[in-house]
């Protein structure tokens, strides 16, 4: 535990981003993620970085677009209603093949919704959100340690695949403190990229960062090229955690805070003699479909536990090709199921077993 410090999840994101060499942050205040901005406001001026409180989430994401176009690491963070406002910019960034990090510390919706934790932006994060054919790599941390680790990972993945990466957290993970070992600090990279706008210095043809293609054949080609990259990501980057799956007859599927709660329920179910395990998607896109399909060969049923009316369950059903029943344990609007509620659903799944 030598190097562990106690930090809020939101602060861990900010510190880890700085350590990943990010020197540009643009945001707009919204609960429950404002600590990210506050941390950046404090630190960035001291390390020669940019913290800018933008006039809106729309402006913030477009500032991100501007920095990303220059080839430097950049991020923004917000919570659900603010992320909706950013969708235009995200679509442009994806359409221009630029890397960046977008953090969504989710709260209940729709509309102004509430400020308590939620996972109801799953569809928005994993199925597009903005207009056009595009994907985001979506990482789902379930601890403060993962907030730090996945922030660093997100920048690396964004740079590797030239696309925006979203860290999809929720109010609980953002607000909670846990001991965290921060990733090693890396210096910002200033390597010249063959697509970035940095000034021609009269030595090369001009670079154009753009998502406009008025010739449909060209635009189609761009889309196909992008989806070849996406296919590679689906093959190589799906991540998940298995918990007590070795001999499991039933499988809970949950991510983020829902996985933390479900872990308690799975442990309790094991004490009752129920052979239950859990698969926790760590990447929501790409979704760890292969792992679930593999589990479907041996387990009798799945239970999707979500802080939404049931969004990830659609991907679970697709992953197992409806070969096994998939049931749902859900809370919405900022409510979180208790381990007992999840346990009750596990018992129901295991055949109407009553204590």
């Amino acid at each position: 535990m030598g190097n562990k410090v106690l930090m809020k999840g939101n602060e861990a994101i900010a510190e880890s981003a700085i350590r990943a060499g990010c020197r540009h942050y643009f945001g707009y205040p919204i609960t429950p993620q404002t600590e990210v901005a506050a941390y950046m406001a404090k630190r960035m001026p001291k390390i020669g970085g940019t913290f800018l409180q933008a006039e809106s989430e729309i402006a913030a994401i477009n500032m991100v677009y501007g920095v990303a176009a220059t080839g430097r690491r950049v991020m923004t963070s917000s919570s659900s209603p603010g992320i909706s406002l950013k969708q235009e910019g995200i679509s442009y960034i994806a359409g221009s093949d630029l890397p960046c990090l977008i953090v969504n510390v989710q709260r209940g919706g729709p509309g102004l919704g509430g400020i308590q934790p939620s996972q109801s932006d799953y569809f928005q994060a994993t199925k597009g959100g903005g207009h056009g054919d595009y994907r985001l790599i979506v990482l789902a941390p379930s601890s403060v340690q993962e907030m730090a680790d996945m922030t660093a990972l997100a920048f690396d993945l964004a740079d590797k695949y030239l696309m925006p990466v979203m860290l999809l957290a929720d109010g609980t993970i953002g607000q909670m403190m846990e001991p965290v070992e921060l990733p090693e600090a890396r210096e910002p990279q200033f390597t010249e990229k063959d697509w970035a706008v940095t000034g021609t210095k009269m030595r090369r043809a001009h670079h154009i960062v753009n998502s406009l293609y008025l010739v449909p054949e060209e635009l189609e080609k761009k889309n196909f090229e992008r989806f070849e990259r996406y296919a590679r990501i689906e093959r190589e980057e799906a991540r998940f955690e298995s918990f007590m799956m070795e001999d499991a007859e039933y499988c809970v599927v949950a991510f983020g805070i829902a996985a933390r709660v479900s872990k308690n329920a799975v442990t309790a179910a094991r004490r009752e003699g129920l052979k239950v395990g859990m698969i926790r998607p760590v990447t929501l896109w790409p979704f760890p479909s292969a792992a679930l399909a593999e589990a479907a060969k041996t387990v009798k049923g799945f239970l999707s536990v979500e802080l939404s009316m049931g969004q990830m369950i659609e991907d679970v059903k697709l992953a197992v090709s409806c070969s096994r029943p998939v049931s749902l344990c859900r809370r919405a609007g900022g409510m979180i199921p208790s381990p007992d509620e999840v346990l009750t659903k596990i018992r129901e799944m295991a055949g109407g077993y009553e204590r």
Partner: protein
Amino acid sequence: MTVFEKPKSLTDAEFHYCPGCTHGIIHRLVAEAIDALGIEGRAIGVAPVGCAVMAYNYFACDMVEAAHGRAPAVATGIKRSLPENIVFTYQGDGDLASIGMAETVHAATRNENITVIFVNNAIYGMTGGQMAPTSLPGQVTQTSPYGRDVSVAGYPVKVAELLSSLDGPEFIARVAVNNVKNVRNAKKIIEKAFQNQIEGKGFSLVEVVSSCPTNWGMTPDNALKWVEEKMIPYYPLGVFKDRSAGKEEDKA
């Protein structure tokens, strides 16, 4: 012998602009300013959504295409990342004064060290002639077919006057390109707007009163007359704010 040459800061791509459109002149003035100041190698332009959407093909410097109205935010990001580069936006009236008003005002009030070229031709050109935030009272457009009714559509936005009321911006001016004298002055003012950035002075915006013969339904000649007779009286030309000049006067 005087040889008329294309500025180095323009590419060889042919403009797609309509006959008589003044975008060509304004592109040229911007490129001449970049050439004159020797900043082509470090200039980065941000193109708008509107008639100038393909400006990224015409300027020879590095270019970024922004979403509608967001150019000042994109330029802010670029400038914060590369403070030694010279960053400019080129925007129309719908882009800058309607959908992008928040980005415009806030970049100005932050005194973001960028140069903004604002082309005001009182109409949405690219989409085929709809009412703009700067369309004149009574002006007939596709979406104000009976003339702009100020009781319904409100009044035109006077961008230069509006922004010059802010403490933030360094330099706000309005020019026109309807005759040789005005073009010469526009050239001088645009160059100053870039020079200010080089000197680190801050946000410099030049509103260029322009014409759109196609969507105004006029010959190019008549369009220029309309600029003189209708536009300029409503949008008076001049320097509305020049903080550094103010300081020099104070000293004097």
